[in-house]
């Protein structure tokens, strides 16, 4: 009766499941782990309830959500990969460090022995958690390693190798004491050869066992330091509170606020990651123990087989054997078979996509949109119509149907103006004249026509006095310009303050110093849109640097000339086309492919062409074209929307949704936004899925289709959060949305470099083909 090796069986089972979760987490869970549940008010039995993450386990979220609203089950399964890989990396790292040292030490090197001993004492005395915590914060480590993942991994390797080294050293000493070593010396081997050829093979069982046990130990440490907040996915937040870097998911980061969660009774937030750790640790430990038992009894044909690998793979040897084919027939056959299977697996031909995405067309569109003719058109200017007409024409030509009767949908813009001329000089007796440059040192935020010289007075929050604010308190400000520093004030206070100045203090005009640098401002499109509260007065936003300069001056005079033109009845022109769904049950499920074009070719030479942003519309256009021309009716409805005015307060998307999808009763809309593409500098595409609710099953399926097709087209995806003004509107209507953008273009977007010279046509192929394939699958593929 053979005694079964239960530990091994159980251990292998667990490790296999974990491996499956690492390779294909999608199979285990429906939702994308980045999708976030949003806070909202719900009516339950007639009463308003505030429903915010973290959500406790319920039918929609079987394991609940984390504090950001991400589905816990998905987090666990997707997080498996990074967590396990890090643990394995640590185990391998420790092994690579310990093994040579152990061999040196066993051979008698005093230095190695001392090193092992001292390190062991040192790291045994300090808790590894504290050591890691200290070192992670040091600037040196982040300079050296760059990636947060490798920092923690490297630190844990550095602080944990000594135990393994000690164990290995004893084993090596044991082997060196065996009689056959003398025989190996006698035939003339030097120490290195004996180490590699005789000692290491004997160590392999121990090494394999130790490896698995070490992975378990590494997982344990990772879970512990996670509780202390030392985690690997070091995403950074920017000033808007949004993640700048893409972030990856792992289990330890889920444990970061665990004390707080337990204290507030949200046990599931800690339970699932802890359980995941526990099961993995048990699995690896069992496997290690099971293998140890196995190795102790078995004959090591394995080792002899391993020895044979180098000569098996040697191509020179193969050539020799081919020459002497008659003697080595069986060996040659085996090798050729092996190589054949290998080649087959590596270069397995993929099925081609049904439709081909033509990058030439998309590139042409981008070129067209970046042409100088389109320069100077802004939302609300008449030149805006040119692009929208162009797009409408293209849509019509490709068989896309106009939405609700027409391609172009016009919506009113509240206020659109353009500053044609601006001169501003501030002078004082002591400092002389300081000339400010328009759009570099200041922006005009209200449409005015003014010319004159005024006194410039500094004004602070204290000067405002106390509530209630009477107009007559500020008589000495009338007719003057006020210099106000609003940096550091939070949004509400600031807008109140400026509002009060405009409405109550009523000076001639306001120069307010805001925290922007001239270059960065170019990316933010918002300065030019006047706040409602600033409607009456002249409001000028001054850059931070210039503001500091001005604050140092006293007794200032300001001389300015501003000419602006407002557009009559400004409108934004959105272009929307669609293909209606043909399947009775599915036609109410709508996919909207959206892109914005109102930055493209914007303004005069000071505002940059934003060619990358033209990529979005270009890609959408090409996709629409292919689907339209194919003549095949999609099962689901697809809408292609090209938004205008998204850089203003009156976004085209907002108006459109209000008009056609108010309250979104059927709630079956999925929105895909295409933003920037084609940049030479970056080849990674970022997929932001945070705005799709994890419990929206249909939407999650679509996301899986996108990911699958990305893999198929060898498109490298990263995950993160991207900001887009259209998202406000989507969230307002509770529409699940994803954004597809190019990663790491912060340095070039909306700067002088963002022109056609920076666009590479080839780069359009993979994302374009991915979106096309995904769409085809969703629209035509039937039940998803």
């Amino acid at each position, binding site marked *: 009766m053979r005694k079964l090796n239960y530990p091994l069986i159980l251990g292998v089972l667990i490790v296999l499941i974990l491996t499956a979760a690492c390779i294909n987490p999608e199979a285990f869970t429906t939702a994308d782990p980045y999708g976030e549940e949003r806070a909202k008010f719900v009516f339950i039995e007639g009463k308003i309830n505030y429903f915010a993450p973290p959500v406790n386990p319920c039918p929609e979220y079987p394991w609940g959500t984390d504090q950001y609203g991400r589905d816990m089950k998905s987090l666990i399964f997707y997080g498996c990969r990074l967590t396990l890989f890090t643990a394995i990396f640590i185990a391998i790292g420790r092994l690579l460090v310990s093994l040579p040292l152990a061999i040196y030490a066993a051979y008698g090197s005093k230095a190695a022995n001392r090193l092992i001993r001292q390190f062991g004492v040192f790291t045994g005395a300090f808790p590894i958690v504290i050591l890691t915590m200290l070192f992670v914060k040091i600037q040196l480590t982040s300079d050296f390693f760059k990636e947060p993942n490798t920092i923690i991994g490297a630190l844990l390797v550095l602080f944990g190798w000594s135990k393994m080294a000690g164990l290995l050293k004893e084993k090596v000493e044991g082997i060196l004491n*065996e*009689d*056959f070593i*003398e*025989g*190996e*010396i*006698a*035939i*003339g*081997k*030097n120490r290195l*050869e004996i180490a590699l*050829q*005789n000692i290491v*093979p*004997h160590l392999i069982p121990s090494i394999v066992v130790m490896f698995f046990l070490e992975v378990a130990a590494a997982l344990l440490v990772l879970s512990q330091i996670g509780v202390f907040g030392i985690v690997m996915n070091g995403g950074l937040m920017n000033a808007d509170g949004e993640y700048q870097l893409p972030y990856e998911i792992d289990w330890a980061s889920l444990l970061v606020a665990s004390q707080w969660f337990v204290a507030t009774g949200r046990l599931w937030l800690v339970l699932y990651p802890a359980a995941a750790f526990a099961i993995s640790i048990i699995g690896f430990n069992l496997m290690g123990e099971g293998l140890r038992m196995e190795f102790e009894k078995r*004959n*090591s044909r394995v*080792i*002899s087989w391993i*020895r044979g690998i180098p000569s098996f793979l040697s191509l020179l*040897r193969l050539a*020799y*054997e081919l020459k002497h084919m008659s003697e080595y027939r069986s060996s040659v056959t085996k090798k050729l078979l092996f190589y054949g299977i290998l080649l087959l697996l590596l270069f397995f031909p993929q099925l081609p996509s049904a439709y081909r995405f033509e990058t030439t067309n998309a590139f042409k569109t981008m070129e067209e949109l970046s042409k100088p003719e389109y320069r100077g058109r802004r939302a609300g200017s008449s030149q805006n119509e040119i692009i929208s007409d162009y797009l409408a024409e293209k849509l019509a030509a490709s068989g896309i149907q106009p939405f609700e009767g027409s391609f172009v949908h016009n919506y009113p813009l509240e206020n659109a103006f353009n500053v044609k001329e601006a001169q501003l000089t501030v002078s004082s007796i002591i400092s002389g004249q300081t000339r400010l440059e328009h759009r570099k040192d200041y922006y005009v935020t209200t449409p005015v026509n003014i010319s004159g010289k005024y006194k410039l007075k500094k004004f602070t929050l204290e000067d405002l006095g106390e509530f209630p604010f009477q107009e007559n308190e500020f008589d000495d400000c009338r007719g003057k310009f006020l210099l106000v520093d609003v940096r550091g004030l939070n949004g509400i206070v600031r807008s109140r303050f400026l509002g009060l100045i405009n409405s109550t203090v009523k000076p001639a005009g306001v120069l307010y110093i805001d925290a922007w640098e001239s270059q960065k401002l170019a990316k933010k499109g918002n300065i030019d849109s006047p706040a409602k509260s600033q409607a009456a007065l002249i409001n000028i936003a001054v850059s931070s640097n210039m503001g500091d300069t001005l604050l140092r001056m006293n007794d200032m005079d300001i001389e300015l000339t501003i000419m602006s033109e407002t557009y009559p009845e400004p409108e934004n022109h959105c272009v929307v086309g669609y293909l209606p769904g043909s399947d009775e049950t599915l036609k109410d499920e709508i996919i909207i492919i959206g892109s914005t074009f109102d930055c493209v070719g914007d303004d005069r030479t000071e505002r940059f062409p934003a060619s990358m942003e033209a990529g979005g519309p270009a890609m959408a256009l090409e996709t629409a074209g292919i689907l339209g021309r194919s003549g095949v009716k999609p099962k689901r409805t697809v809408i292609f929307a090209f938004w205008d005015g998204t850089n203003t307060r009156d976004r085209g998307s907002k108006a459109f949704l209000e008009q056609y999808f108010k309250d979104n009763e059927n709630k079956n809309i999925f929105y895909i936004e295409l933003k920037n593409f084609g940049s030479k500098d970056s080849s990674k595409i970022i997929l932001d899925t945070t705005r799709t609710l994890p419990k929206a099953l249909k939407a999650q399926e679509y996301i899986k289709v996108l990911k699958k097709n990305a893999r198929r087209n060898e498109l490298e995806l990263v995950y993160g959060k991207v900001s887009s003004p259209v998202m406000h509107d989507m969230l307002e209507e509770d529409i699940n949305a994803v954004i597809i953008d190019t990663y790491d273009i912060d340095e070039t977007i909306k700067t002088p470099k963002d022109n056609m010279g920076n666009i590479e046509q080839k780069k359009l192929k993979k994302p374009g083909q991915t979106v096309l394939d995904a769409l085809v699958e969703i629209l035509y593929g039937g039940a998803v």
Partner: protein
Amino acid sequence: MNHIIEVRNLKKYFDINSRMGMVQHQVKAVDGVSFSVAEGETLGLVGESGCGKSTTGRLILRLIKPTSGEIFLEGRDINSIKDKELRSIRKDIQIVFQNPYSALDPRMTVTDILSEPLSIHKIVHKYEYGKEVKRLLGLVGLSEQDGKKFPHEFSGGQRQRIGIARAMATRPKFIICDEPVSALDVSVQSQILNLLGDLQKEMKVSYLFIAHGLNVIRHVSDKVGVMYLGKIVEMGIVDEVFEKPIHPYTKALLSSAPVPDPFRSMHLEVLEGEIPSPVNPPSGCAFHPRCRHMLAICKEKRPFLQHISLNHKVACHLADIAFEGGRASYA
């Protein structure tokens, strides 16, 4: 003189540690041993435990570093060579170990074990290893299929054959046989001894044959050296030493070996006392505490090997006196 190996005044002292870094004791494992072995000749070294015969063998192969003395391989001084050059002498000098059960790496197949020396010393081209291993196996009476097996799948005698094959792989000139048959069954011993003899004739290799079984030594050796406490006390052509032993120790040794002949009358020259420990050897002649014929000089002065006939040397004061007369002609 075409001596393959010549050893002069070889010494090996082990330091026993020692309080506070100062050496307290020394084990004089080998204390001034000299001999030479000609081509195709077998020198037997016999003695009891602690006499230093195994250590001597390992010193020649430089498995242990000598404290002093000279070793010549074909006239070349190999004692002072650097460690890097050791590899080349390990091609010409090989060793067969006593314990067949632990001399071979248990995790290597026989083919791997035999291929190693071929690869280290580049005896044949890499792709010819298979053929050469087959030849070596045949040389020692094993088959090609045995190459795929592991050492533990063989009996003791077969394992010793593998060990011999490994030693022969480098086509050495000199092989140190360190008690190669002591751990084997009687019926297998003779097979191995025959094999060693055949190989010697075929490959013209010289042996240093270390053993404690006197009958085995008698059979294999041309010359024999009797060792006691690190020194050679008697040396000569084997027939002469065995039939006309001079040193009291040799005599005692020969008489105490059990003879499988119940008809022979036993004449046991029993020695007094125990074999002393090599840490604290007696002064003068190391054998004097156990010698019946001890003289006063034996306590003080150490005797050196002196010829008593052309092919027979003894280190004994008594012998010196007895044979003084006839010595001059052989000095």
